[in-house]
């Protein structure tokens, strides 16, 4: 990083500068985790690249390019278009609600022919961008005041409500949690969160009545997983059996009985961590979790080194999002929280999650590359 001169903030960076300033270590980490994902999908296919591993590898290769492109585009561009991106994402979410493709009992995708787009995933990035821009433009002395919190609350709650209606509880929780954390980091006073929590508690009975039956069942099941082992509790029971029977060192590659004999449901998507821990045991699971922690630490380090509030918040938002993915997924497969349908980032089979996560890392690296670029409140560079 010594190659970057102190005056870098005052002139445009060349592509060469940017490539040199890129955090290749993060790319390496992401590639390593994805590599583990390929191996697990190979195992999930009962020792075959088909049908999952090969397609996942192709997706990774394809999304690597936009990730780098996102990193190289000037941060000011992202700052300027943050609300636009949010707007487009919101329209897409509404579109899904209107004429979506119904899969897995929930309306989540728009079929664009080539890929199936899941707008709620895009929204995770868009929300972070919008909130980062908002708090960036807010003078620090205002951010504690109630009336300046109204807009971000709307920015968060509108997509949350739409996503809940699809219904996609996992994404809604991620949007809500991610947004709230970003507000906190943006300077919103803690007592306001307390007030919000109280309001939420008051609204909980109403929200309960809006939940779909299967969502209620999942909550019940979470509380008492053993009462109905062949019904709703089946997934979580089988997941715990798979995890537990893995033991310290696991059953070995391709030797997980629970996953290979199909007792473990959704082993290639939501429950892939279980499969990993069944085959590689506690040791393997800890190694994987360590890699995730490294990514998150990396993300926070990049964010905190940014000179702009926008950069800091965007970086932290991407890191928080990634953390929420990993935490919710692993906690749910272990029976710590209800099953809400959140994939394990970079490892679970699936296109949109991969795109979201990779674009998120693209933004993160963008922040790293443009860490010294200063942005005015309005979004103009100081030297713009």
């Amino acid at each position, binding site marked *: 990083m010594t190659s970057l001169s102190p005056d870098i903030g005052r002139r445009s960076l060349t592509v060469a500068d940017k490539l040199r300033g890129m955090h290749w270590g993060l790319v390496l980490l992401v590639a390593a985790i994805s590599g583990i994902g390929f191996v697990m999908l190979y195992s999930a296919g009962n020792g075959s690249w088909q049908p999952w591993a090969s397609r996942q590898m192709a997706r990774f290769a394809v999304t690597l390019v936009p990730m780098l492109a996102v990193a190289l585009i000037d941060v000011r561009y992202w700052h300027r278009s943050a609300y636009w991106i949010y707007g487009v994402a919101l329209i897409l979410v509404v579109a899904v609600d209107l004429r979506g493709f119904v899969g897995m009992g929930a309306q989540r995708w728009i079929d664009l022919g080539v890929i199936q787009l899941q707008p709620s995933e895009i929204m995770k990035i868009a929300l972070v961008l919008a909130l980062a821009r908002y708090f960036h433009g807010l003078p620090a002395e205002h951010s504690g005041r109630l009336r300046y919190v109204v807009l971000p609350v709307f920015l968060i709650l509108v997509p949350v409500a739409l996503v809940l209606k699809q219904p996609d509880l996992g994404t809604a929780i991620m949007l809500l949690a991610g947004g709230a954390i970003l507000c906190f980091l943006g300077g919103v006073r803690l007592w306001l969160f307390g007030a919000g929590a109280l309001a939420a508690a008051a609204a909980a009975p109403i929200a309960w009545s809006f939940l779909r039956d299967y969502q209620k069942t999942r909550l019940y099941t979470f509380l008492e997983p053993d009462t109905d082992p062949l019904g709703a509790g089946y997934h979580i029971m*089988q997941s*715990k*059996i*798979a*995890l*537990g*029977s*893995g*033991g*310290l060192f696991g059953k070995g590659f391709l030797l997980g*009985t*629970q996953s*290979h*004999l*199909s*007792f473990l449901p959704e082993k290639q998507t939501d429950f892939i961590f279980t499969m990993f*821990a069944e085959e590689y*045991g*506690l040791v393997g*699971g*800890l190694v994987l*979790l360590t890699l995730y*922690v490294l990514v998150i630490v990396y993300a926070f380090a990049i964010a905190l080194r940014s000179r702009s509030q926008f950069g800091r918040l965007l970086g932290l938002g991407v890191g928080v999002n990634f953390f929420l993915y990993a*935490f919710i997924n*692993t*906690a749910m497969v*272990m*029976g*710590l929280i209800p099953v809400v349908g959140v994939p394990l980032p970079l490892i679970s089979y699936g296109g949109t999650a991969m795109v979201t996560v990779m674009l998120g890392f693209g933004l993160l690296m963008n922040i790293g590359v443009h860490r010294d670029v200063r942005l005015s409140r309005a979004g103009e560079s100081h030297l713009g």
Partner: protein
Amino acid sequence: MLGAAIVGRMYQLQILQKDRYAVLADENRINLRLLVPPRGRIYDRFGVPLADNKPNYRVVVIPEQTGDLEAALAAVGKLIEVTEADRNRVLREVRRKHSFVPLVVRSNLSWEEMARIEVAVPELPGVAIEQGMIRHYPYGPVAAHILGYVAAVSEQELTGDPLLELPDFRIGKSGIEKAQDRSLRGAAGTSQVEVNAYGRVVREIATTPGQPGQDLVLGIDMAMQDFVTRRCAAEPSVSCVLLDALTGDVLSLVSSPAFDPSAFSTGLTPAVWQELSTDPRNPLTDKAIGGAYPPGSTFKPVVALAALESGSITPDTAVSCPGYLELGDATFHCWKKGGHGGVRLRDAIKRSCDVYFYETARRTGIDRIAEMAKRMGFGAPLGLDIPGERPGLIPTRDWKLATTGSPWQQGETLIAGIGQGSVLATPLQLATMAARLVTGRAVVPHLLRPAGRLPPGGDAVPPAFAPLGISPRSLGLVLEGMTAVVNEQGGTAYAARVNEPALAMGGKSGTSQVRRISQHEREHGLRKVSEIPWKERDHALFVAFAPIGAPRYVCAVVVEHGGETGGGGSAVGAPICRDVLVEAQRRDPARKVPQAEPMAQTIAPDLPLAIPAAAASPGFRRG
């Protein structure tokens, strides 16, 4: 902090509770399948198989392999008959089961049907022949009541043994199949297979072979059983018991008509069941052990023994028979209207004089008669080793008081003296009585031969039954009378005598009334047999032993509603007994008679047995 929760949870699941989850994972994937053990076979005394297992072919479809299930069913339907019900059942089941589970289209295929499918199998994907085992009785109805049958396990018979819950498993429902079900059943083997979440078998992990059911040997002589069955078929409803008096082996036990036990293995059709269960001749009941009849005059030997042993009569006591006996204001009739004149014991048995036995019973008393009847095997089940035995009934003062509340009347003693009234006996008890008469021992009949097949030359030592404690002299007197019944002119069964002296038999006829003879009939003459409805005709009974010189075989026959009024069992029962005993003796040389010592002890040589000289001819008595 949240990360610590994750790691802590992993530690809890994967280290602390590892064993518990490892067990659960194995329970998930490892499926224990039971291997049905082959049911034990049943043989007769010479090793002839009476019950075995034969392959049962069924045609199955595996839906996932057929492509088009309906087309496959149609194709099968062109080769063999597939009813609409079968078709619908398969189409119903396919919706409830995984597509790799074979569905039975039809079972119990004939050899020809099986062959037709087998040839076409290469062109019929997803159609296969499966083989199971089914209980088979090569002789069909011939020993049906002895062997019993097997059928699907009923709800009440479930004991928690998983073997019983297998759809193919059959359990003994009657006869030997029921009595010996435990040993015939064997122990199930197990096959540990790895299955996936849908139940499909991935591979076999381990198998432990089961224990095949134990083979059993019966004392039955199947050729004899077959002969008796065919002989009995001459009458509508007959039961016949043939015993080896020395060993207690049941050589044949026939209740006619019978049923085909093989039909139960596959399941009866409602029509067949309806026919079997409503037939007035009760083909499903083993009448030889489960039919209780008034023994009539066949009971007279018991009365005679009780009287002789108690001293209430001597062989020389004479009773005058004018055709009736008056007691108080009641009149007891002899079967012979004009009476027998003056009769002594020998003649009274020979001519079956009722008045003589009225008087003898009166002198002896019901207590002594009942006591003797019990010693001779009446009034309680004999403990034959198959279920279904009836106890019969020997009335006593206590029994009368307990059941009717009124005291015993002397007239009832008289009626019991000719085996009527409340007295009831099974054919098996009558045969056992004969066996006890000729041996003087408490012979107990049995079907199973724990010693296995008969060795060449017969059993070395016949089982020693306990002596009855009846004097050989009394036994000899009764046997002498019974010999006269068949072999002397004027004997009730003289017409059924054996012409070959070496095979001669002795016996006693009996008629048991099904219906009271009315005063009107006595005055106006009895109706002809042909005029009486079958159901109202008397039963004809005959009890016999042979050969008279050294009795070995005893036989009891009850022909339901076969009696000619007044003529007794001699006309219908005696010829059957004769043919059976002659056949038994003809087959005897192959059997080799064991030592006849028990005979020598009980029936002493000094007995005044009226043995025709020819019957004692050398060469017949084997020792």
